[in-house]
């Protein structure tokens, strides 16, 4: 029996099962950001690893078929960008200007503030891509010598917080245009923010997922440039 604990089948089944359970709860809660399934599956799975005494390396190897899909999924983000090309062309100036400003603000403020707290270099590398979608953030973080799992959790937290503060913050700023609102949410809070934007307004949602996809490219490009000079 105990041999089963070290098979991929066991941990793949447990991971999908735990995730699906929390995903059902999240659906019931009308996709509230605080009910994001990753937020709850992660601590439960960590608990199960500790309880069964399974080393993380063994778990990571067993669940490789799931995490392998991240790469092709990131490549696939090109398809929605392609589908929105007409709208992107029409709004190219607002999109490029706000995307550049937003991506720079995100990198400089996150890295700057953490540096003020005395964060070491590997943490700065983990927080630098915090506005990008999780798989891209993990790839960038490991590129820069950061910690991919920490990057994943930072991004998740930024997404949940961003999705919750978007409506009050943008109302406070008096930004009423749903395209500006949606794009800003996507650039700052990636997929979790986009999911929230779709609940509010269709065009806000479309612009949010566009902002998420474009910022993955922009942040990766900016950090690649910075990495050359630092």
């Amino acid at each position, binding site marked *: 029996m105990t041999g089963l604990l070290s098979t991929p089948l066991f941990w793949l089944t447990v*991971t999908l099962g735990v995730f699906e359970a929390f995903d059902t709860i999240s659906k019931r809660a009308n996709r509230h950001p605080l009910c994001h*399934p*990753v937020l709850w599956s*992660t601590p439960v799975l*960590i608990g199960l690893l500790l309880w069964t005494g399974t080393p*993380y390396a063994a778990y*990571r190897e067993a*669940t490789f078929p799931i995490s392998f899909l*991240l*790469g*092709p*999924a990131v*490549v*696939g*983000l090109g*398809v929605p960008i*392609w*589908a929105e090309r007409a*709208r992107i062309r029409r*709004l190219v*100036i*607002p999109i490029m*200007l*706000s995307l550049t*400003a937003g991506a720079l*603000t*995100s990198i400089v*403020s*996150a890295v700057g*503030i*953490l540096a003020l*707290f005395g*964060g070491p270099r590997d943490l700065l590398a983990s*927080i630098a891509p*915090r506005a990008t*979608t*999780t*798989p*891209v953030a993990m*790839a960038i973080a490991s*590129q820069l010598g950061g910690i991919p*799992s*920490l990057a*994943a959790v930072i991004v998740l*937290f*930024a997404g949940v*917080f*961003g999705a919750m*503060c978007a409506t009050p*913050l943008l109302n406070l700023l008096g930004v009423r*245009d749903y*395209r*500006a609102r949606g*794009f*800003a949410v996507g650039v700052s809070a990636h*997929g979790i923010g986009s999911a929230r934007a779709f609940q509010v307004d*269709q*065009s806000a949602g479309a612009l949010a997922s566009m902002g998420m996809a474009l910022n993955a*490219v922009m942040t*990766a490009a900016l950090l690649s440039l910075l990495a050359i000079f630092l």
Partner: protein
Amino acid sequence: MLRAIFLLFACQLTGEILHRLTGLALPGSVIGMLLLLAWLTLVPRERPTLTAVTSWLTAHLAVMFVPAAVGLIEEGDILAAQGIGLVVATVTSTVLTMAVTAIVFRWALGRFVPLDDANTGEKSA
């Protein structure tokens, strides 16, 4: 179906090769995304299967990073030592980024998109 999967894999593999050859810090998968965009532009046609495959992948993105997030199990010391800094930096950066992006977008919309009729038309779409 296999052809769509092959296209995604081929783009990522080419991205990884370019990443290694050029030493770019841009991850191979992001280069792959740009290559896919270039391919779609060069060979434009309807691709319902590719759209179906990528929509499925995107819809299930969350579960794919669970194994990585569980890796936090090994980062307890860092979280204890730097947790407050990480939270303050993440929260502040998220708010600032959203505000700056929204304000610049709104300004550029008024300044550079004179015939702005899409605003009301698209909202109902």
